[in-house]
């Protein structure tokens, strides 16, 4: 009974859904939090980082960036993220290339509009996070 019902959703689709989760660790703007069943209701803002949840004693890793989360009364955790990816599904090479491209654009437009600047910074953050998480769990990808 004491399990978490976890939902991970992006604007484009439902990434993951399972109601047999033992614990979740989520990066939020006020630091990483770990949620156990029967957590009190909470709404918070997500930050780029690594999310881990335990299911049947096994750890699952995700890279996520931007968005918010809600913990409801009945051990329901909803994560509304802009970008979510399973750690071992991250294409490290592509993340590297994307980051390099964004950084290059950043140099070019340094003196232009703030909006573009913020957007590129977000892209760089996201790709850096993907890279970090992707590299960390590279072994998971190979073992499959």
């Amino acid at each position, binding site marked *: 009974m004491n399990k978490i019902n976890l939902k991970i959703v992006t*604007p*484009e*689709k439902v990434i993951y859904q399972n109601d047999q989760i033992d614990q979740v660790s989520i990066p939020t703007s*006020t630091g990483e939090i770990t949620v156990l069943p029967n957590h009190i209701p909470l*709404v*918070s*803002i997500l930050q780029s980082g690594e999310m881990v949840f335990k299911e049947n004693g096994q750890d699952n890793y995700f890279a996520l960036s931007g968005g*918010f989360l809600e913990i409801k009364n009945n051990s329901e955790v909803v994560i509304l993220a*802009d970008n979510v990816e399973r750690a071992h599904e991250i294409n490290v090479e592509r993340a590297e290339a994307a980051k390099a491209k964004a950084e290059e654009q950043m140099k070019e437009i340094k003196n232009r509009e703030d909006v573009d600047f913020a957007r590129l910074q977000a892209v760089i953050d996201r790709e850096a996070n993907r890279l970090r998480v992707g590299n960390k769990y590279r072994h998971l990808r190979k073992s499959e």
Partner: protein
Amino acid sequence: MAVNSKVIKRRIKSVSSTKKITKAMEMVAASKMRRAVDTALRTRTYAKLAWDILVDLSKTPEVKLPLLEVRPVKNVLVILVTSNRGLCGSFNSNIIKKTSLSLKNPDNLGVQDIEGKILKTDNVKIDVVGVGRKGADFAKRNGYNLTASFTTFSDTPNLNDILPISQMVLKQYEERVYDKVVVAYTDFKSAIAQTAKLKQVLPISKIDLENMLTELGEEDLKKEKPVVDEKLSDYLFEPNPQSVLETVLPRLVETQLLQAALESSASEHSARMMAMRNASDAAVDMIAELNLNFNKARQAAITQEIAEIAGGAAALE
């Protein structure tokens, strides 16, 4: 007679090659439509959950945010979502007709509901942002003030396509350039039914959001509504309600725009599919009729030849 049958033959050939093209376009549109409809459905989950959070937030004491500010309307921004390409039946003309109707009566758009009171303003100015080439062309041609146009959307728009629009809109609303933002799009009901719609995006009003969500999927909503009456004090906001709202509200606007774009693309492809199916059907009918005419002409030629030969033989005797 021989000349006539040759002409008919040529027409049959041209009609059947047109039919091949329309048939192929129908297939392409059908597969694109399936994808677009899938994406539109998937986005609904996010919209619903984001809305849930907003409902929970509304239980907290009022927070003042520029995005929630309702003010008398002087300048309106209309985001017109159309397709980039033609050959999709009355898809574009429907949405453009609907939009131009309200563009001609700008004061109707100026009606604003401020805390229950209906407020009307005169001399409302309207600017148009065109999403899709057809809408932008329309605004340009008819002398409306087209401030921006986005014509590089993919077949199934994603968040990255929407972000430039939503950021621009949010910024301009916060800077009070516009007092109201409306999106005009085609709502996808089914493969054969689509309706042109105008929807208010900003200021964020509860009624509109509720409408949007009931439209999105009434079954889903009803299913998951065992209303748990949580006490306000039970809810924790980290770091605080204000900054949570600051992240949630722009996302809601983005989601609404994304939803509009997705619905519109699903509608576009199904409209195109139907138009192409009609064209193929018409081509089949036309070919049948032309075939009949061709056979008649051929038979007439044969009969005439026989009559001529018989006549010639009779003259010799």
